[in-house]
């Protein structure tokens, strides 16, 4: 059905081009060849925003000295405490914990995967892999570490016993799209033992193959058996299964250049496998994209929660520990990386989402704040992922400072 739709719209495009050609031919030839295409992140920018100085923030690829890591600026609800757990990992993003307690940390621009393990109260990170193209995705299953870069899928077997193992190359088996923009992956193993990942759209907003991009897909761990679990999810860089239900929830980044307050970023419930969640037609709070009117918001399931415009919700996990008070158990914790495409910055924090009983709606509440200074519109750090530890504490990675904080609770 969808492929028919794509075919039909391609045909319509070809037809309209055919009709457009004669009128073009009547015009004088342009003085110079066609303008360069804008960068993928800038597509969809309206004429009145053409000179906007807003642009993605620069990464920091060098280690932040410990005395300049803003752990002291972090604010938490009463009884919670933040400490610096590990640092010296420029670009630290997504986290996965191995059976021996080693935490593996993916990155983007710096191309590294770090490994950090608590040994007698000290944690010295090491570079486990390097020279990869945005190795954002890390996951552990049956003693093997999976590293997913844009152009590679690698498996490190018996990683705990053999920390210098040469990886098994699974790139061809997974045969992932090669587009760079939104090509970095979040990966996690589901309760079904399958490896789940996002495949983002290679643009800000565009017409694309809806069976190839804006997806959440799952594979057998060897790369076979690809199945689409969710369509129309523009770019999800964090998802988890609600404890006790096996239902997948995913954070999602909505498009840019449609205003400071629209559309909102979202949390989705993937209740039915393969269901379409709206992009590029519908985003945020039933916001119909004026450039993509082919389908209506009423055709798609509403998001479970609105997470604010341009806040960039990335890593997201349900709290299944017992250290935090009863009220926090079962909530989703979402790291909001923070906005760039908004005049007044927003995000740069961690929020919680408490779901109603049937899991169809959530209530958003601030949790970790203090890294955004609204006064001078600046930020000190960028929370990127959250990870619940066996003792019930929570790790929060900060990409901008190459650091991981540990959040604990004591009455």
């Amino acid at each position, binding site marked *: 059905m969808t492929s028919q739709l794509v075919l039909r719209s391609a045909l319509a495009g070809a037809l309209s081009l055919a009709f457009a050609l004669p009128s073009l031919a009547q015009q004088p030839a342009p003085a*110079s*060849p*066609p*303008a*360069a*295409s*804008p*960068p*993928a*992140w*800038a597509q969809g920018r309206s004429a009145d925003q*053409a*000179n*906007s*100085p807003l*642009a*993605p923030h*620069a*990464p920091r*690829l*060098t*280690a932040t000295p410990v005395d300049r890591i803003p752990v002291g600026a972090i604010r938490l609800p009463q009884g919670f405490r933040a400490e610096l757990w590990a640092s010296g990992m*420029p670009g630290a993003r997504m986290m996965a914990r191995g059976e021996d307690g080693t935490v593996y940390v993916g990155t983007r*621009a*710096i*191309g*590294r995967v770090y490994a950090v393990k608590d040994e007698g109260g000290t944690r010295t990170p090491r570079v486990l892999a*390097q*020279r990869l193209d945005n190795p954002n995705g890390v996951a552990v299953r049956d003693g093997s570490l999976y590293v997913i870069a844009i152009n590679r899928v690698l498996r490190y077997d018996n990683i705990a016993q053999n920390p210098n193992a040469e990886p098994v190359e699974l790139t061809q088996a997974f045969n992932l799209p090669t587009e*760079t*923009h939104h090509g970095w992956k979040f990966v996690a193993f589901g309760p079904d033992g399958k490896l789940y990942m996002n495949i983002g759209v290679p643009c800000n907003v565009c017409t694309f193959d809806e069976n190839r991009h804006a997806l959440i897909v799952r594979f057998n761990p060897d790369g076979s058996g690809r199945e689409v679990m969710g369509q129309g999810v523009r770019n999800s860089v964090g998802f988890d299964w609600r404890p006790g239900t096996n239902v997948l929830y995913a954070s999602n980044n909505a498009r840019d250049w449609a205003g400071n307050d629209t559309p909102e970023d979202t949390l989705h419930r993937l209740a039915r496998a393969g269901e379409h969640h709206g992009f590029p037609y519908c985003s945020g709070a039933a916001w119909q994209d004026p450039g993509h009117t082919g389908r209506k918001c009423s055709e798609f399931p509403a998001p479970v929660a609105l997470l604010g415009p341009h806040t960039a919700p990335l890593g997201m996990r349900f709290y299944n520990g017992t250290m935090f008070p009863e009220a926090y158990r079962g909530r989703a914790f979402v790291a909001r990386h923070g906005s760039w495409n908004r005049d007044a910055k927003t995000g740069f924090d961690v929020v919680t989402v408490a779901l109603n009983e049937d899991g169809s709606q959530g209530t958003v509440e601030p949790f970790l704040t203090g890294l955004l200074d609204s006064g001078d519109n600046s930020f000190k750090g960028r929370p990127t992922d959250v990870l619940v530890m066996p003792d019930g504490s929570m790790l929060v990675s900060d990409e901008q400072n190459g650091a991981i904080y540990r959040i604990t609770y004591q009455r």
Partner: protein
Amino acid sequence: MGLALMAPAFFAPAFVGPAMAQDAAVERGAAVAAERNCGACHGERGVSATPSIPSLAGQQGEFVTLQLVMFREGLRDVPPMMTATEGLTDTQLEDLGAYFASLPHGVPPDRARRNVGAFNNGAALANRLRCGVCHLPNLTGQAQVPRIAGQREDFLAATLKAYRDSQRHGTDTQMNAAVHGLTDAQIDAIAHYVAQR
């Protein structure tokens, strides 16, 4: 011209704490630059007289540091720079950024005379491609976006072609998209215009 460019340094405000830390970084960076012999190719004061080698004087410090990280990590394939950065610490790369940013920008001694036709073509293209949004209207750059005004013309042309042909990307891929589909002649005009700024 040289005097006019250097003049602001004489009117710099009195140094305070962070400025002193910055001075120390500049001093350390100068020592690393001397040890690694950066000046042999990039010019003793960071103004390159060597074809295809960029000037670094007055460059954005953050840009310099990020590119040095990419060389050291093997993410930018320029063998002489991969050798030059081997074994340097993060702090040393930041110090080098601070050092080159502190040097007064200057145009290369062998800069060609302005070709008004090429300059105007390049200016029109640069305006259409909105180079001035990220590089700022005076093309002096900001943070990870480099200063390009007054850079060597041969280096600019080669770099833009490398972006166009996907032979190079930065910490992101924005430049690859920005120059997509340009002809060699268009790139040469942009390079001439930017080098003359």
